[in-house]
């Protein structure tokens, strides 16, 4: 019944067995129509450095689960542990602050993390370089394209220096070409850092393109329905035949989950 952000004591960090541990988590919301169970007994581990996608149709509670892991809400039952500290969270909308420049948005995250003033600017420049936006430090949010905004948002999330990055359909609002490029960027950055990623999407191909492990949630209430380990070597492309093949298999299961709701 708790969300623990406790940073593990120095020295034990190397021996961490998980970046996130979700144990028997249930979540229900009470509304005017009575209590609604959104997540039912979900258990899931994310290993350090692992890339996991959570896949599900609408109503599977995948965003709710991410909010719980982020500590924005509390589970009704069960526990969530993130030993690497407060996880960073990226949204479908960039959620950058329009009153700050791209660079200052990143510096705010650094400042809130307690980074000394003199170190903030070079670190922000380094993170912008990492998302290949070296020249964007002084740019205002509205001067950036959708894809560039999401890259600045990624840099800001990385500025939190968390071991776990939560992503809530971060590329869903982008056009297909930009999304494809950002898949490549995310994979590259994930490989360059030792970040663990928990990525939520309803796009099966995106899930297979990115993840080492795909977790399918059923809908209403959300339960872990099935898991796949993706053995395809990176760099993958969304058009690759083996990506398509596994996507097809997963899609069949997803459709089966959705069909069950029409039978009542």
């Amino acid at each position, binding site marked *: 019944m708790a969300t623990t952000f406790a940073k593990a004591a120095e020295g034990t960090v190397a021996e961490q067995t998980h970046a996130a541990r979700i144990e028997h988590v249930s979540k229900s919301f009470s509304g005017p129509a009575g209590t609604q169970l959104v997540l039912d007994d979900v258990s899931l581990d994310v290993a350090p450095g692992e890339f996991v996608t959570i896949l599900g149709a609408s109503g599977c509670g995948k965003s709710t689960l991410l909010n719980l892991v*982020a*500590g*924005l809400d509390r589970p009704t039952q069960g526990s969530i542990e993130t030993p690497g500290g*407060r*996880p*960073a*969270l990226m*949204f479908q*909308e960039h*959620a950058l*602050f*329009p*009153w*700050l420049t791209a660079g200052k948005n990143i510096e*705010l*995250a650094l400042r*809130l*993390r307690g980074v000394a003033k003199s170190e903030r600017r070079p670190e922000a420049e380094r993170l912008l370089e990492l998302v*290949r*936006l070296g020249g964007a430090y002084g740019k*205002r*949010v*509205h*001067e*950036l*394209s*959708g*894809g*560039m905004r999401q890259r600045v948002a990624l840099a*800001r999330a990385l500025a*939190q220096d968390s071991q776990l990055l939560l992503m809530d359909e971060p590329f869903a609002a982008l056009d297909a*070409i*930009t999304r494809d*490029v950002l898949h*490549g*960027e995310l994979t*590259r950055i994930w490989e360059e850092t030792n970040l663990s990623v928990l990525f939520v999407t309803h796009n099966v191909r995106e899930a297979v393109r990115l993840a080492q492990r795909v977790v399918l949630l059923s809908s209403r209430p959300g339960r872990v329905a099935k898991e796949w380990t993706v053995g395809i070597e990176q*760099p993958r492309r969304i058009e690759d035949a083996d990506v398509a093949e596994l996507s097809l298999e997963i899609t069949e299961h997803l459709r089966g989950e959705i069909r069950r709701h029409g039978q009542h």
Partner: protein
Amino acid sequence: MASTDTAATVKKDDLAGLEAGLDALDAVEIRRTPVREVLLKKVLPPTIAVALVLAVWQILVSAKITEETKLPAPSAVWDGLVDMWLQGTLLEVVWTSVSRGLAGFLLALAIGTPLGLLVARVKFVRAAIGPILSGLQSLPSVAWVPPAVLWFGLNDAMMFTVILLGAVPSIANGLVSGVDQVPPLFLRAGRTMGATGLKGTWHVVLPAALPGYLAGLKQGWAFSWRSLMAAEIIASSPDLGLGLGQLLENGRNNIDLPGVFLAILLILVVGIAIDLLIFSPLERWVLRSRGLLVK
């Protein structure tokens, strides 16, 4: 092994190039409006409107459609202005009122801002005084002049009281509506970065609420100025010095219609000038820097 390495490198370089191309294609171009266009579209129309009003005014007087005792000639008002300028009283009178108005406004700012923040962020305070605060906005501030005179007598304290009662609710309400309009996404983004409590207020809520707050300040200034004029007209006393409100009242007492018109025009011009010189540029700057300025 070497061949797959090259393949991967090529793929990566390819990605960088692709991304640079996309960024260039998608770049949003920000164009400043040239001065000529500003003059043509923003300055010319109001100038024409003012000229038209003056022309109609002059025609009404020249054609003797109205009596001179009801509507003074524009030239008579202009002569009054020149006289005041030559006597050296014009700037003094304007400054007496403007300095009073701005000081009162700054005081209202210092009180209205924390009050607004309290109402916006503390549920109990909002439930308790929120409705009263927005109700006060519809109370004409001239209503506060009689009690203020009884409390303080005819002095500056009475003037400031009237200004505060007029302007504080506007400023506080502006901040409240600014805070209410902060997108919940910003608050969530702030919380995931550790901006909670006072840090969240300082780094997220206040800057996000700035446009609404500025709109409140604009309205607060308008209310300050109106309240002050009401106070100056009703409560004139030699101790208070000659402000624009007293100038208007003196014109009435001396049955000096050009003087009355001059006072009204000066009050109007000062109110507009402060808005144009201080609040509008501030608001435009904030909106433009956020990409919110719609042309």
